[in-house]
C-alpha cells in the first residue's frame, strides 16, 4: 500500500510546467495564444498602413 501511495505522490509531483507537453495534455499556454493574436492584429494594422502609404494620389 505504501509504495502505491509513494507512486501516486510522485505522479502528482511530476506535473509539467505551463506550456509544456507532459501527460499528453497541454497545460497553460495563454502566452502562446496572446502572441498569436497580437501577431495577427499587428499584421493587419501594418499591412493596412502599407496600403495607405502607397495609395493612389490622383
Amino acid at each position: 500500500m505504501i509504495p502505491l501511495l509513494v507512486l501516486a505522490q510522485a505522479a502528482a509531483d511530476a506535473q509539467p510546467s505551463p506550456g509544456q507537453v507532459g501527460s499528453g495534455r497541454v497545460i497553460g499556454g495563454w502566452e502562446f495564444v496572446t502572441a498569436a493574436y497580437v501577431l495577427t492584429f499587428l499584421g493587419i494594422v501594418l499591412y493596412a498602413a502599407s496600403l495607405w502609404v502607397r495609395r493612389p494620389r490622383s
Partner: protein
Amino acid sequence: MPSWVPLVLLLVPVGICLALPFKRDLLDKVWLVLAAEAVFGIGVGTYLALFSVPPERDMGEVVRIFAAHVPQVQNALLAVVLNFGCSLWFLIRKSWVADSLAESSAEVGLYLGAVGTALGAIWAKPTWGVYWTWDPRLTSAAVMLIYYAGYLALRRFTDNPDTRATWSAALGTFGIVIPVTVYKSVVWMKSMHQVQSSPETVYPQLVTAFRFSAIGFLCLMIVFIYQRYRIAQEQLKREVAPPEALGAPQGAA
C-alpha cells in the same frame, strides 16, 4: 450567437464576387461594407475564441490559436489560386486588369501566408514541442512563401510592363502546383499536421468562432486585394501613359 449567422454573412462577399464580372466598379462602392464585415467577423471570431470557447481536452488553451491560424492560411491559399487564375487570364487575353490582380493577390497571399505560418509555429511549440519541423505541410508552406516572394521580386527585375507581366504570368501559372501541394500534403504524405480543417474536423466548440473568423478574413482579403489592385493600376498608368495624359506640363520630361 446562432451558428447560421456566419453563413448569412458569407452571402455578402460571395454575392459581390459573383457580381463583379458584370459590374466592374462595384467594389468602388461597396468595399467599405466588406471592410466593416471584416472587422465584425474577425472581432466576433476573436472574442468567441478567446473568451467563450472552453479549453480543448488535449490542446487546452492553445486550441484558440486555430481561429486565427486556419482562416489566414486558407485565405492565403485562396489568394494564390486567384493569382494562378489571373496569370492564366493574362497569358490568354493579355489583360492589364489580370496582371494587376495577379500582383495584388500574390502580395496579399504572401502576407496572409507568412502570418498564418508564423501562427502555426507558435501553436506548434506547446503542442509538438518545437516551433518548426520539416513536416510535409510546413515545408510546402515554406516553399509557397519563398515562391511568391520570388514572384514579387521578379516583378522588380524589369521596368518594361509587358515583359514583367509575361514573366510573372508564366511564374504564376506554374505556381498552382504549390497551393495544391500545401492543401493535399497532409493526405499525400506522412504528416504530423492535422488533416484539412473543416467544421467536421475542428474542435466542435470552436466551429462558430472559426466561421466568423474565416468570413472576416475572407472579406479582409478581398478589401486588401482591391486596395492593392488600385495601387497596381495607378503604377501601370504612370508607366504606360504619356506625361501629358497625367497632367504634367507640355514638354516636361
